């Protein structure tokens, strides 16, 4: 089975993140880049599927040169090879543009299964898996907390507010995973050393036959009109329990329409 995992480099959630004042895109130099956490679950799930069913795991990332760190991490975890879509023309692409660019690349490199995290911790649109599936014309199985492959069919448990749905499809397909689907492995030093020798193919927009009019800031359908720093958190309400703490807490929750 030919599995492609889409991974994204995002700014470390533990650091202060900000947007650039000039083009309102993410300031990637302001924070350390890390692998989007949910994508680590996707890599782990892909590796487990490969271990169970055989095949090959390819990492696909779209991002600047610095995103090669993210590729290295996924390769160190055990992926076999990587494709790095890197081109200045892609800078500032919104979810539509990104899904188009990735879909073009996926058509070029081929796949039986695409696995990715259900959202990224920076943009948090959470729509990429659906858009990708649509553009590729394959089934989408999103928000999976369990994935099973049987021959050419695939079944997932799709997490919902009320529990889960069982969703089945025929490969090829796109699967997005939620956290806790597995416990991502830490790369071993052997894996880290081996990652250096694994093939990483760099593609530009021309290589992937991407129409530049549909990507980048100019090609994006959505636009960041304005942004502001999050206001500092207001001080909370302290309720002192003088024998009536339960009533006060219930009143507070009722005032917020929680109960």
């Amino acid at each position, binding site marked *: 089975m030919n599995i492609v995992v889409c991974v994204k480099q995002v700014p470390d959630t533990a650091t202060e993140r900000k947007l650039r004042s000039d083009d309102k895109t993410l300031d990637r130099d302001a924070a350390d880049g890390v692998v989007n956490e949910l994508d680590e679950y996707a890599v782990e799930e892909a590796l487990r599927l490969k271990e169970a069913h055989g095949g090959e795991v390819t990492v696909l990332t779209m991002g600047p040169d610095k995103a090669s760190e993210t590729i*290295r*991490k996924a390769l*160190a975890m055990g992926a076999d090879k990587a494709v790095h879509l890197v081109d200045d023309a892609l800078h500032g692409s919104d979810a539509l543009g990104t899904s188009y660019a990735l879909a073009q690349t996926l058509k070029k490199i081929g796949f039986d299964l695409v696995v990715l995290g259900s959202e990224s911790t920076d943009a948090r649109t959470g729509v990429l898996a659906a858009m990708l599936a649509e553009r590729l014309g394959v089934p989408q199985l999103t928000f999976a907390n369990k994935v099973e492959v049987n021959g050419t069919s695939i079944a997932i448990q799709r997490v919902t507010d009320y529990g889960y749905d069982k969703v089945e499809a025929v490969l090829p397909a796109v699967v997005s995973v939620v956290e806790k689907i597995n416990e991502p*492995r*830490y*790369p*071993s*030093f*052997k894996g*880290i*050393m081996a*990652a*250096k020798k694994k093939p990483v193919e760099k593609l530009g927009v021309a290589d992937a036959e991407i129409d530049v009019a549909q990507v980048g800031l100019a090609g994006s359908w959505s636009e960041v009109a304005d942004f502001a720093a999050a206001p500092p958190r207001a001080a909370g309400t302290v309720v002192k329990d003088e024998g009536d703490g339960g009533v006060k807490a219930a009143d507070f929750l009722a005032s917020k329409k929680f109960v």
Partner: protein
Amino acid sequence: MKLTEEYEDLRKTVEAFARDAVAPVIGELYEREEFPYDIVRQMGRMGLFGLPIPEEYGGMGGDYFALCLALEELARVDSSVSITVEAAVSLGAMPIYRFGTAEQRAQWLPKLTTGEMLGAFGLTEPGGGSDVPGGMRTTAVLDGNEWVINGSKAFITNSGTDITGVVGVAAITGRRADGRPEISTILVPAGTPGFTVAKKYSKVGWNCSDTRELAFTDCRVPAENLLGERGRGYAQFLQTLDEGRIAIAALSVGLAQGCVDECLRYVRERQAFGHPIGHYQAIQFKIADMEVRTHTARLAYYHAAEKMLAGEPFKKEAAIAKLVSSDAAMDNARDATQVFGGYGFMNEYPVGRFYRDAKILEIGEGTSEVQRMLIARQLGLGDL
């Protein structure tokens, strides 16, 4: 000094592991003085127990510096976890890898390198520490094709866990021509009749590390359990200890760095007299001093490791690294506790744990006095 990409990736991986998998659980384990079996299993899967050992024995094919980087990152969060790896690799697996026969390597290394089994090394005795070999009392006598071991060992790390597999025991196996004791190392599998492990010591620090006294009473093991050449035991552990000093230096730097990390967080949050306490010079200077000690100690151990890996003499550099690093750890732990005030004296804050864990660094793997002795000897003052 810039780390190569591989070293930096390893450092980051262990940093993330220590932060995400060790930090959330270690406080409670420490309180209960429990050996961190689950953390050991996870570190085994990551290959930390096989870092400097070739892949053919289940290792990671890295080097001793890789091990040191991992030890530093672990000790930034907890020293018990770090010393468990240090002792298992540096004292348990490395001597077997370095001095063992093909059979001994094949028998023990694949399990030691994966952390499935822990190794230990018994050198220090209740009545003899820095004065080995003169102060050593444990004997091993060849009786037919078996060694018969009698004596006891003290403060032996990893010697009594559920997964302890083998202990290298240094013992007197005869007298040399010059009358001095002939020392050899013999591998004693856990569970061998006549080999008993006492209950865990009650210690000031390193509470999650397994440290015990060992007793040997007519303990018999096959003659082929001799590690390396007969009579080479002293030379073997001198080499083992030289390397081990760099590892303990790395661990000490980790503790010193952990103090800086914790203080930087705390002094931004804690308010006094209308400002975060980090606003005040009394605190800033303390933290600057802590950073200086950590940084210089790290350079010292990097340098010692570099010389060692280059195959150059490194005895003096290792001793310097061990001395400055353990001083840095001790000084930083004291200052960090002071910065935290009353909370520094509470076990629920990591700095209190750091304070308790720091003292042993001036004692284990050669006391600070022994390091000074070694440095003076390397300067040619040994024969005056």
